């Protein structure tokens, strides 16, 4: 009964088309290139499916579109008038780097909610019985969230331009800054995948995510310069990955970055820190998420 690479096709002679379908391959192990191509296609199919979800779930859609507009306008008009930056400069110019970071971080929660909903409904059961690559489930999820992040970042930038934000380093600077932020959001979505895989249901995934994301986004230099904070909070804020990402955006956009005036390692190397955080989060969280997923779907 053991099957070798030249296994006889189990399908009855003259049987259904699955055997003769050029899209399926029963005989022989597919080569490495073929397998990679199939994996990529699975990821693309699932990414497309997840993006359709974003479009149809009002909550997720608003996370990527309405929320960025709302937060940008709120912070710029509410805090902008009363905030004096150490070293001078306009609050609006300062705020956009932080708003990009904060919006992308909160939008990454979509990964936990989406994964958790998939596990709750039967659709994952269907995937489990298909000849697809199971690792494509997580890859498709985080890739869809990456694209949603890019949309979200674009909307923050457009809103920023509308309310008077002026990046001094031109288009290249803006693109570079957004790239750092989107990379971080991608890394963070792997952390969110762990939340989604360990939560009982989408609601608790959302709830737990909020508890983690809000301090992460707010105890940082995203909205206020760290200079004015009490010591404990200041140290946390200085090393917070979102501070590093926000400061990198400001540097790359050519906007005021008051953190540069403080003399700490974190303040002097925001770009290094932002990239290091992103790589470290993926390195730690991706294997854990994959293991959790395998455990949850093979029991």
């Amino acid at each position, binding site marked *: 009964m053991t*099957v070798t690479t030249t296994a006889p096709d*189990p399908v009855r002679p003259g049987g259904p088309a699955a055997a003769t379908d050029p899209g399926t391959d029963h005989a022989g192990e597919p080569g490495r290139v073929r397998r990679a191509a199939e994996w990529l296609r699975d990821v693309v199919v699932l990414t497309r499916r997840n993006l359709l979800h974003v479009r149809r779930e009002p909550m997720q859609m608003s996370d990527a579109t309405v929320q960025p507009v709302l937060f940008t306008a709120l912070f710029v008009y509410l805090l902008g008038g009363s905030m004096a930056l150490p070293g001078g400069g306009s609050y609006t110019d300062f705020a956009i780097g932080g708003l990009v970071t904060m919006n992308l971080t909160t939008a990454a929660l979509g990964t936990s909610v989406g994964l958790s909903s998939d596990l709750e409904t039967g659709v994952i059961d269907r995937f489990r019985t*298909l000849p697809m690559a199971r690792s494509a489930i997580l890859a498709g999820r985080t890739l869809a969230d990456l694209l949603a992040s890019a949309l979200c970042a674009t909307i923050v930038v457009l809103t920023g331009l509308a309310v008077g934000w002026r990046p001094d380093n031109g288009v290249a600077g803006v693109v570079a800054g957004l790239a750092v932020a989107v990379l971080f959001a991608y890394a963070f979505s792997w952390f969110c995948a762990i939340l989604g895989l360990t939560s009982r249901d989408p609601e608790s995934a959302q709830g737990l995510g909020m508890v983690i994301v809000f301090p992460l986004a707010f105890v940082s230099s995203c909205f206020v310069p760290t200079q004015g904070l009490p010591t404990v909070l200041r140290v946390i804020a200085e090393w917070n990955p979102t501070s590093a990402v926000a400061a990198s955006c400001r540097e790359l956009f050519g906007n005021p970055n008051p953190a540069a005036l403080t003399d700490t390692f974190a303040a002097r190397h925001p770009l290094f820190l932002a990239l290091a955080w992103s790589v470290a989060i993926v390195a730690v969280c991706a294997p854990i998420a994959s293991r959790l997923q395998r455990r949850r779907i093979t029991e």
Partner: protein
Amino acid sequence: MPDPMIEAHGLHKRYGDHVAVRDVSLVVPAGHIVGVLGPNGAGKSTTVRMLTTMTRPDAGRGHVGGYDIVAEPARVRRVIGVTGQDASLDVLLTGTQNLVMIGELSRLSRRRARARAAELLERFDLADAGDRLVKTYSGGMRRRLDLAASLVTRPPVLFLDEPTTGLDPTSRQQMWDVIRELVADGTTVLLTTQYLEEADALADSISVIDRGEVIAEGTARELKARIGGEQLTVTLTAAHQGAVFALAPLATGPVQVADGGRRLTAPVEARNGLATAAIRALDAAGVDVDDVEIHRPTLDDVFFALTGRPAGARGTGGPAAPPASSGSPGSSAPELLEVRP
């Protein structure tokens, strides 16, 4: 007999302290439909999950389409279609999008996946609903789409896990017709069901499963033969010690007692005046009778004869109860009383 398309030997699965499946063996020959019949929680779904590579067995071996379910799950997945108990569909996609996605994930080209989706929607009477989100579908429509989804690649082996549970009679009939068509086309089917008449109507042979074990196997005819011809069922006003002894002379087999002594069942030979004779005998013993019924045995009777419990009833013994042996019918059921005439 053709080669078996589904073969299971001694499958075993436990979740913590709970043994979901204990030593289950099954054989489904190519082109046949085998029914796995049992009440809720008997281990039917867990058996299907192991054979469809969703869950790894703790012990035992299984082959589907000739491929080992543990060593070659990827190959198994290429020859099976699965329709689960809960429709496993993406409710935020349309019917068409669901089928196209499944086709593409099953390695069909996008063009072929689209063509196949259109074909299946047509066949399952869903063509008009193809562009609607699945969350707007009725229960019957979801089940049909779910079955369509499992047929995208025209798999030679089909697992149907309680495909009609919760469906109205019309939808159930439609589902049966489709299943019969598939088998007529040569598909091999493993069907689980709680409905005795469903297994009777569709299956070539039936495995009765209870508390994770196969307790009987055979065709519907063989299973019915195990409890004889006609079946006499008497419902008493109250349990009475003399009832079994009063009925025993009329019976051709053991009299079985259930429902706290209020329900008695016995195989009998049909003859004129049988019901009158039964009532007279019971009356003479001082037993009050609420109802007397004589009928051809159904699979319900088979289940009752095998387990001492009506189908669907939870075991009374709890986890400490001795495992039901698969020997003579009902030999180990705790509340069963046998009296030979």
